């Protein structure tokens, strides 16, 4: 590789952070999706995504939207919305997330309160560097039914079963999509122009349902 190394993802971990401090930080940053905060019972991870991280994230989010359109499934993109539960002392801001099966329940809402509203149906997690807080138990505790985790080479579909994630070959949120097809499509996104790639995504999906 001859390219200049782009700035890496930056992460810091704080311990003994109170819920009040976490909330104060969220309030100071309510209108920005970066950096992203993850809170787990006093531990706070603050992460500034790298351009590589965000590019992959945006591409996967676009893929989800293209797929839902092709499959004629309603979906709402909630981006890096903050989800938190004070009673569980946990909170997260996903790389991307979508309401699909529960889309109707959150349609038109400007705020999500997990005390009343369902968690997102699908969370995208880009793990190209090792995270300091394992987010899966947080997603599990908050009831996220499906997570797509991308490690830079492979996209894993994780399905919530009895409060734990198990790897699955096929998506529940977007049926008939498999982890191998998703991994291939994400790989293709690295070399293709966005519009050309999106066309390829659509064609692939049409092939699956046809």
């Amino acid at each position: 590789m001859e390219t200049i190394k782009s700035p890496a993802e930056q992460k810091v971990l704080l311990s003994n952070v109170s819920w009040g401090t976490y909330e104060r930080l969220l309030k100071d940053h309510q209108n920005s999706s970066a950096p992203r905060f993850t809170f787990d019972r006093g531990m706070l991870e603050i992460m500034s995504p790298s351009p590589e991280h965000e590019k992959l994230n945006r591409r996967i989010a676009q893929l989800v939207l293209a797929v839902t359109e092709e499959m004629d499934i309603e979906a709402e993109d909630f981006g890096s919305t903050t989800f938190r539960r004070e009673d569980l002392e946990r909170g997260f801001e996903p790389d991307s997330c979508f309401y699909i099966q529960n889309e109707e329940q959150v349609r038109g809402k400007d705020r999500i309160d997990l005390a009343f509203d369902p968690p997102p149906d699908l969370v995208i997690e880009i793990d190209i560097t090792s995270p300091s807080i394992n987010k899966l138990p947080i997603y599990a505790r908050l009831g996220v039914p499906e997570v797509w985790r991308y490690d830079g080479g492979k996209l894993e579909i994780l399905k919530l079963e009895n409060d734990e994630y198990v790897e699955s070959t096929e998506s529940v949120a977007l049926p008939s999509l498999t982890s191998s097809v998703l991994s291939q499509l994400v790989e293709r996104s690295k070399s293709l122009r966005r519009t050309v790639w999106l066309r390829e995504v659509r064609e692939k999906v049409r092939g699956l349902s046809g």
Partner: protein
Amino acid sequence: MDTVKSPAEQRVVLSNVSWETYESLLSGREENRVPRFTYDQGMLEVMSPSSEHESVSYYIGLLVAVVAEETGVDVYGVGSTTFKRTDIQRGFEPDACFYARNAESIRGRSRIDLGVDPPPDLVIEVDITNPSLDKLPMYAQIGVSEVWRYNGEDLDFFTLDNEEYSEVESSVTLPPITARAVSDLVEKSKSFGLTSWLQEVREAVRRGSS
């Protein structure tokens, strides 16, 4: 080398952080000085040092002690103490810092309050990756008379002159040590055993003062 090179520091910068949030983050961390916080009028940098970063700070701290002993200068180290001033909305935690001229008045104190106490006479700053906040203007406003800054290769000395820093070759706090001598010694710390390195430091000071 088949090890993965980890970045020397992890830095995240947050904007729009209130003084109250900064204070609550400081108080949650208790005695732990990691990660380190720098606050500059709403901007908060959170930095997690790597072992390389901490090792350089440690060796420079030892070097200061040896130079002080050889030259008969009274120094009192206060490590990464938090220095903050609400009135100017700034605060920092140096990698290492020392009182020399004011050592007598600070020795044995359990807290330092910049409202009444003098600032440290010498601050050590290790910036192996680019810092997101320029700390020199902050040190200048708080009145730190000398800064040694190491960028991973070179070490520069700065002394405060009319509220601005100018680069100097010889230390004012610890004459006659020079920036070049300290740079060389820091480089040697990476390959020498501790005892032989300390001997090198002593010899360098003796050579310099003769």
